[in-house]
């Protein structure tokens, strides 16, 4: 018996139905179901945005706590995933900024453990990931978010614009800005993104 089966049912939102292709359309979507369905997605986006696995738990809690407050007002179940992405980006950007502020206030260089985001990868890959996030730390949080969603999540410009709550042209500008910085410092990431 799984842990989910042992827990008493929690109140749901009868007007919401799962509309993902992977599930039955008639499945009722209560908060727990929504969490179980979308928390892996939020965790994936969160870890790529933050570059650290140890902060993802807090991020997920923040995202779903905010989602719980607004879930009763959701009218289009198909928009839940994008809505969660938007909350996740907003919360992650806030954490990145706070992290930079803490580092600046303590007058210490940032201590990165991006390898924790790729703990199961080979040593070479982990080295590349470490290098990538070391350089991404030099980007503004919003620019970094756009770049990560584009090149690590593979999202379209429209989806990125929706997640970042900005226009598509702003997303393009941020991506160009990120490319220029990464290229200027000769990063591996720049080399990679310049590949067709």
């Amino acid at each position, binding site marked *: 018996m799984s842990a989910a089966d042992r827990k008493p049912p929690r109140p749901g939102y009868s007007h919401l139905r799962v509309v993902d292709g992977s599930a039955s359309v008639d499945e009722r979507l209560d908060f727990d179901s929504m969490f179980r369905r979308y928390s*892996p997605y939020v965790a994936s986006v969160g870890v790529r945005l933050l570059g650290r696995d140890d902060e993802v738990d807090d991020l997920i809690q923040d995202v779903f*706590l905010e989602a719980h407050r607004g879930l009763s007002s959701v009218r289009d179940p198909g928009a839940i995933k994008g809505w969660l992405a938007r909350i996740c980006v907003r919360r992650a950007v806030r954490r990145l900024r706070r992290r930079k502020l803490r580092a600046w206030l303590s007058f210490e260089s940032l201590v990165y453990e991006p390898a924790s985001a790729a703990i199961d990868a080979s040593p070479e890959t982990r080295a590349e990931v470490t290098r990538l996030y070391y350089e991404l730390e030099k980007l503004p949080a919003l620019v970094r978010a756009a770049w990560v969603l584009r*090149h690590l999540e*593979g999202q379209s*410009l429209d989806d990125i614009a929706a997640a970042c709550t900005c226009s598509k042209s702003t997303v393009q500008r941020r991506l160009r800005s990120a490319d220029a910085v990464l290229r200027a410092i000769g990063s591996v990431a720049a080399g*990679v993104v310049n590949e067709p």
Partner: protein
Amino acid sequence: MTSREGPMKPLPLAASIAPRWGTERRERLLDAVHGRIERVRSLRRLATLATVMVALLLGVGFAWRARSTNHGAVASATGVNGAVTGVNGFVGNGAGVNGSATGMNGFVGNGAGVNGSATGVNVGANNAVAGGNAGAVAAVSRQEVRFSDGSSVHLLGDDAALDIGTASPDAVEVTLRTGTAEFAITPNPRRRFIVHAGVADVSVLGTQFRVTRTAERVRVEVTRGRVSVTYAGGTRLLTDGESNWFPPAELAEPTLGDPTSATGSTSATGSTSATGATSATGATSATGSASATGATSATGSASATAGGVSPTGSGVKGTQDPRTERGRFLEHASRGEYAEAYAAIERTPDVVGNDAGDLLRAADAARFSDHPREATRYLERVVHEHPRDSVAPLAAFTLGRIELSQLGQPAKAADAFARAFALAPGGSLAEDALARETEAAELAGERDRARQLGEQYLARYPNGRRADSVRKAAGLIDGKASSQSR
């Protein structure tokens, strides 16, 4: 590349950047989220509770403060007897001022003015608080009563004593039992303020005045504004700077005159009116029985002579309590129950006072209960007895309408409209009065008068809203032209 807008293949590196995700971690996080949700809910409940508590505390504080205000007022009022502590304690227990007369009397009641009837607050040098019903009374002290609307009464001299009978936002009735009191009343058309002073009742219309009560007579001196004084022989309006003794000297029994009557009976200049004449008639009829009751009877017979409406005085009839009947009359009239109000008048004609307001009320009761002729008598009394009253033009105008439309007396109607116009040539009714007079004159066959009035109307109101009908009535254009122009 960024030039492509659609989804793109993620970097190969992305596949290795992923959380270590599993069911156990997911469920642990789900429990943590629920724990935080519960904490937020608890905090929200606490915040709500705290808000309610603060609101309650504020409410209790305000209530306590309001009660303390009454408290202090009662304490200072009873301080004469040294019973402040006891009365404070009594009031503080929540009984308030209302209905606590017994307790207060029992504790304080060594003053001559304490009355045990719990009908009001009694203030005087030798007295104490006698009861409650001080709803509109903000503060009571030994020499002063303050009302919540800012009005105040100052007692002058040690012998002054005042009873507060009714004190509500709608009506304040006080009784000056002895001595002199100075009143400063804030104008408030929605609140009646009446001072009972034995032989005279003073209806206040927003003013500053002084009332002195002696054994038989009452002197009213108006500093500012105006008051209406009702006494056994009639009603008198006093305005700025005017003063008089009531009943006036011509009605008072010579032997009853107090030593100050020579000074006090100096009537105010210019205030002699039809009321005075009526009073004189009454006094003449009442020769030999010039007590207060006799004067009332005299008024009744005088009124009967003048209008044939008020047959006998209250001192003669006496089977029904006029005050109670009057209360019923006023209540019915204020509710628009005119048939019942008129029935009360028929049972006890004395329910109708002599002031303009009462007469208008009676006229309304009569005409709306299908007694137009009786209504005209009350309206005529308003016009003739209270020509300076602000309602006199309205009364004359209404009289004209009744004569014209209900009684079919265009000639009388024309005269009434003429009176309405003459009483207030610049008033809001003037234009209509002139127009209706023109029409009534034409209906009465007085064509020359109608023409003359029509010309006068058109000269005064060339673009008046009744210009067309006036031209037609005055024969200044023919009907066809009138309808075309309209």
